[in-house]
C-alpha cells in the first residue's frame, strides 16, 4: 500500500464538498427582505396568531431595536445585515391538516438524501420526527401514539392555536425577550419550531426528534423550541440541523427553552451540522443560539451536543438549578475545521441546595479554525453543598488553528465544591505510529484517536445519534493531520 501522505490528505480535503450541499427547488412563499414592525405583525397575521402573541412579538421587536449586537464573543465575522434578510419563507404547499402523503414529494426526497426518510424512521427506529424546513413544520409523525399518553408534540405555531394557555404561560419564561440581542430578534420574528408538553408522571415512550434545515437562499431561520416536562416526567429530545451550501452567510438565531418541574428529567441532544463554509471560509451559517433550561426540585436537565458545522457558532446551553437536589449536565464536542469559529460552552447557575452540575467539553480544532470554550459556574449564597465538576479538553491539529478556554467561576457559598480542569494537547505522533504499525492508515488512526478523545461525550448520545455523530467527526476532520 502506498503511503498516504499529508499532501494526499490535503488534496482529498480540498476536493471534499459539503455532503449535504444540495438545494431543493420548492416553490416558497417568501416575504420581501427587511425587518420592521409591519413585517413582525405580518408574520403574526400570516400565521393566524391571537392578539397576545402579536403584541408579544411587537414588544420583542421594540426591545430588539434598542439593543446592540454583542461583540464579546471570541469570534470575528462581518455582521449580518438584518435588513437584507427575508424573515418568512414557507414551502407553499404546507397545509396545517397535512398527512405524510400530502407532503411535497420533492421535499421528501430531500429528507431521503439526508438519510432521515420519514417512512423509514417511523417504521424502523420508532422516532417521532417533527420536521422543520425553512421555518414551517411540515410533518409531525407519531402524533397519535403520543396523544394517547397525553403528550403534546407539535409545531409551536400549532401549539399557539391549540394550546394557547400553555404557550402563553411558558414562552419567554426561561429566555425572556430582553435576554440578549438574538433572543429578542428571535422572539419578534420566529416562524416556527417545536412545542412539547409531557404531562405529570409520564415517561415519553420514544425519543422525540426534530430536523432543521435552512433551504431558501437569503433566509434566516428563527425557530423556537419550548419543552415543558411536568412533575415526575421524562423525555429525551433530539435535534439535528443541516443546511445546503450557499455562498452568502445565513443566519440562524434560535431559542430553546426547557422547563423541568419537580422530579422531571429532560435529555436534550443536538447534532449540529449546518454548512460550515467552504475551504476558503466563504459562506456558511451563523449559528447564534440561546438555549436554557430551568430545573425545579430534584429535576435534571442534560444537554448533549455535537457541533461540527456552522461558520460561526455562538451557543451556550445553560441550566438554572433552581430547586434543591437539581442536576445539570453538559456534554459537548465542538469540532472546527478550515475557517470555522466556535465560541461555545455552558452556564450552570446554582440556586438550590445540593444542586450538582457536570461539564465535559471536548474541543477539536483543525485547519485555520478557532475553537473557544466559555463557561460560567455560579454558586449563589443559598446554594448549600453545591457541587460542580468541569473538564475542558482541547485537541489541536496543525499549527494554524487555535483553542481557547474562558471559564468563569463564581462562588459565594462556603460549602460549595468546585473543580475545574482544562488541558490542551495534540495527537501524539507515537499514537499514530502505533496505529500505522498495525496497518491502520493515518486518517483512520486520527478518527480512532478523536473518537477516543470524545468518547465521554459520544457515550451520552442516544444510539441513532451516536453513529451519525461519529461519522460527522470523521467527515469534519478528514485531511487535517497535524
Amino acid at each position, binding site marked *: 500500500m502506498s503511503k498516504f501522505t499529508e499532501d494526499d490528505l490535503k488534496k482529498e480535503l480540498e476536493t471534499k464538498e459539503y455532503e449535504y450541499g444540495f438545494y431543493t427547488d420548492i416553490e416558497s412563499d417568501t416575504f420581501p427582505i427587511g425587518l420592521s414592525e409591519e413585517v413582525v405583525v405580518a408574520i403574526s397575521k400570516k400565521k393566524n396568531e391571537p392578539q397576545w402573541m402579536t403584541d408579544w412579538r411587537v414588544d420583542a421587536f421594540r426591545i430588539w431595536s434598542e439593543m446592540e449586537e454583542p461583540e*464579546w464573543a471570541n469570534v470575528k465575522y462581518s455582521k449580518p445585515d438584518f435588513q437584507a434578510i427575508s424573515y418568512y419563507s414557507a414551502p407553499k404547499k404546507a397545509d396545517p391538516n397535512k398527512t405524510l402523503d400530502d407532503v411535497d414529494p420533492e421535499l421528501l426526497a430531500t429528507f431521503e438524501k439526508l438519510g432521515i426518510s420519514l417512512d423509514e424512521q417511523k417504521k424502523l427506529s420508532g422516532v417521532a420526527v417533527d420536521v422543520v424546513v425553512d421555518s414551517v413544520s411540515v410533518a409531525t409523525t407519531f402524533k397519535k401514539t403520543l396523544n394517547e399518553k397525553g403528550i403534546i408534540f407539535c409545531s409551536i405555531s400549532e401549539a399557539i392555536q391549540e394550546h394557547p394557555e400553555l404557550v402563553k404561560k411558558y414562552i419567554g419564561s426561561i429566555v425572556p425577550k430582553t435576554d440578549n440581542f438574538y433572543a429578542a430578534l428571535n422572539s419578534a420574528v420566529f416562524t416556527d419550531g417545536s412545542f412539547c408538553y409531557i404531562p405529570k408522571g409520564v415517561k415519553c415512550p420514544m425519543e422525540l426528534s426534530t430536523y432543521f434545515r435552512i433551504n431558501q437562499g437569503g433566509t434566516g431561520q428563527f425557530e423556537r423550541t419550548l419543552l415543558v416536562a411536568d412533575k415526575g416526567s421524562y423525555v429525551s429530545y433530539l435535534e439535528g440541523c443541516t443546511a445546503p451550501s450557499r455562498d452568502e452567510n445565513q443566519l440562524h438565531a434560535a431559542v430553546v427553552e426547557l422547563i423541568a418541574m419537580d422530579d422531571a428529567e429532560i435529555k436534550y441532544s443536538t447534532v449540529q451540522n449546518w454548512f460550515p463554509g467552504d475551504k476558503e471560509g466563504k459562506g456558511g451559517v451563523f449559528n447564534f443560539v440561546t438555549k436554557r433550561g430551568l430545573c425545579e426540585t430534584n429535576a435534571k436537565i442534560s444537554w448533549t451536543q455535537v457541533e461540527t458545522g456552522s461558520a460561526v457558532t455562538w451557543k451556550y446551553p445553560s441550566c438554572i438549578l433552581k430547586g434543591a437536589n437539581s442536576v445539570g449536565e453538559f456534554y459537548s464536542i465542538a469540532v472546527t475545521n478550515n475557517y470555522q469559529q466556535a465560541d461555545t460552552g455552558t452556564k450552570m447557575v446554582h440556586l438550590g441546595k445540593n444542586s450538582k452540575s457536570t461539564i465535559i467539553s471536548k474541543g477539536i480544532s483543525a485547519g485555520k479554525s478557532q475553537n473557544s470554550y466559555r463557561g460560567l459556574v455560579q*454558586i449563589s*449564597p443559598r446554594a448549600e453543598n453545591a457541587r460542580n465538576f468541569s473538564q475542558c479538553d*482541547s485537541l*489541536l*491539529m*496543525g*499549527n*494554524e*488553528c*487555535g*483553542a*481557547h*478556554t*474562558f*471559564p*468563569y*467561576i*463564581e*462562588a*459565594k*457559598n*462556603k*460549602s*460549595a*465544591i*468546585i*473543580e*475545574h*480542569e*482544562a*488541558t*490542551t*494537547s*495534540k495527537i501524539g505522533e507515537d499514537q499514530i505510529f502505533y496505529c500505522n504499525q498495525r496497518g491502520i492508515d493515518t486518517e483512520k488512526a486520527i478518527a480512532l484517536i478523536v473518537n477516543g478523545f470524545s468518547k465521554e461525550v459520544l457515550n451520552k448520545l442516544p444510539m441513532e445519534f451516536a453513529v451519525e455523530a461519529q461519522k460527522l467527526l470523521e467527515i469534519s476532520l478528514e485531511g487535517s493531520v*497535524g
Partner: protein
Amino acid sequence: MELKEKLVSSFLAFEAEVDTTNDIHDIRTEAIKSFEKYGFPTKKLEAWKYTSLNSVLKNDFSLFPKKEAVIEFKDVKQYFISDLDSYKIVFIDGVYSSHLSGTTHDKIDVCLMSSALTQDRFKAVIDVYYNKIAKEDGLVSLNTAYAREGAYIYIPKNTAADKPIQIIHFATGLEQASMLQPRNLIVAEDNTEVTIIERHQNLSDKKVFTNSVTEIYTGKNAHVDYYKIQNDTDTATLIDNTFAEQHSNSLCSVHTFAFGGEITRNNLNFFQKGQGIDSILNGVTILEGKAHVDHNTLVEHQQPNCESHQDYKGIFDEKSTGVFNGKIIVDQEAQKTNAFQSNNNILLSDKATVNSKPQLEIFADDVKCSHGCTIGQLDESALFYMRSRGIAPKEAKALLMYAFANNVLETVKVPQLKTRINKIIAKKLGVNLGFDL
C-alpha cells in the same frame, strides 16, 4: 470635580514642578492623553469585571504632598526585615527618605527614578528600557504621566547583586486622602541575579491610593526573584502593574503575598521573547474583613521551548473577596510550550466570595497547557483527626491552611523572608504553631 478631570487638569502644574528632560516630557504628554482617552477602568471592561474602583475614586485625593513627614526608624522597624542584610530604598509619601534607606552600592545601580529620569549618566539605559513594555491603559498611562519617583535598579552584565533589595513605601496620612504613583525600573542584563522585596505600608487610617508600575527586564540567563508583601490597612488601595520582558534562558519569578488592604489589584504581565525561558507566578492570599484582592495575570509565550508556572492559593474569611483572572497566550511560533496554571481556594465564610477565571488562548499545536481551579473547604475528617489527637480547633485549622499554602510558601528562597511571612500568617490566624515551615 471628578478625579479624572482633576488629574488631567493638574498635569501642567505637575510638569512645572518637576525637573524634566524633553524625552520624558514627550512620554508624559503622550501618557496623559492616553489617560484622558481611557480613564479609570470600570466593571464594564472584561478584565475588571469583578473589581470596582468606584468606592475608592470618590475620595478627594491630594495629588502633591504639601509637607514632608518625618518618621523615626524605631516606629517602622517592624516593617523591615531587619535581620536581613539588604539594600533598602524607602519612600515616605512618595518622597525618598535618605535616613531610612541604605543604598551604598558597588558594581550595581540601586538608585532613584528621579535621578534616573533627569541625570545624563542614566540616559542610555532610560532610552532603551523606560516605558517600553508597560502597555497603554488608563492606570498605567496615569502612572507614566505622573511618575517621578521609585526604584531604579540596574545590574550590569555578569554580575550578581550581593544582597537582596528591599523597596518600602510608607504613607503617613498627612492628607485626608493621598494618591501615590511610584514607578520602578529593574534591568537585569545577561548573566545576572537579583532578589527584590517590595512592600507598601499605610501608617495611618487615612485613605491611600497607590498606583504603581514596575518594569522588569531579564536578559539572557538572568534570574530575577521578586517578592511582594501586601499586608496593608483596610484604607489602603493598591494597584500594582508589573511588566516583565524575558530573554533566552532567563528565569523571572514574582511571588505575591496578599494579606490585606481595601482593594488590591495585581496586574502581572509576562512576555517571553526568547527560548528556554521560565516564568513563575505564585501567590498566597489570606483575607478577612471586607478586603478584596484581584490577581490578574498574563503570560504570553512568543517563542518555542519555554515554560510558565502559575500557582495561586487563596483562603477567604468573613466578607472578603478573591478574584483570580489568569491568562496564558501561546503564540503560533511557540511550539513545545509547557504552561501550567492552578488556582485553589478555600472559603471559610458564607459571605466570602471567590471569582476565578483561568483562561487559555492557544495558537500552537505542539504544546502542553493545562489549568485547574478548585473551590472548597477545609477537610472535616482531617480536622477531626487532629482534634482527636489533642490539637485545638484553631491550631488544627491553621495547620491545614499552612499545608494548603505550603506549595507556594516553600518557593520563597530568602529564609528571613520566609520566617517573616510565616509570622504574618500566624498572627493573622491568631495561632502560635512554634515551628518554622
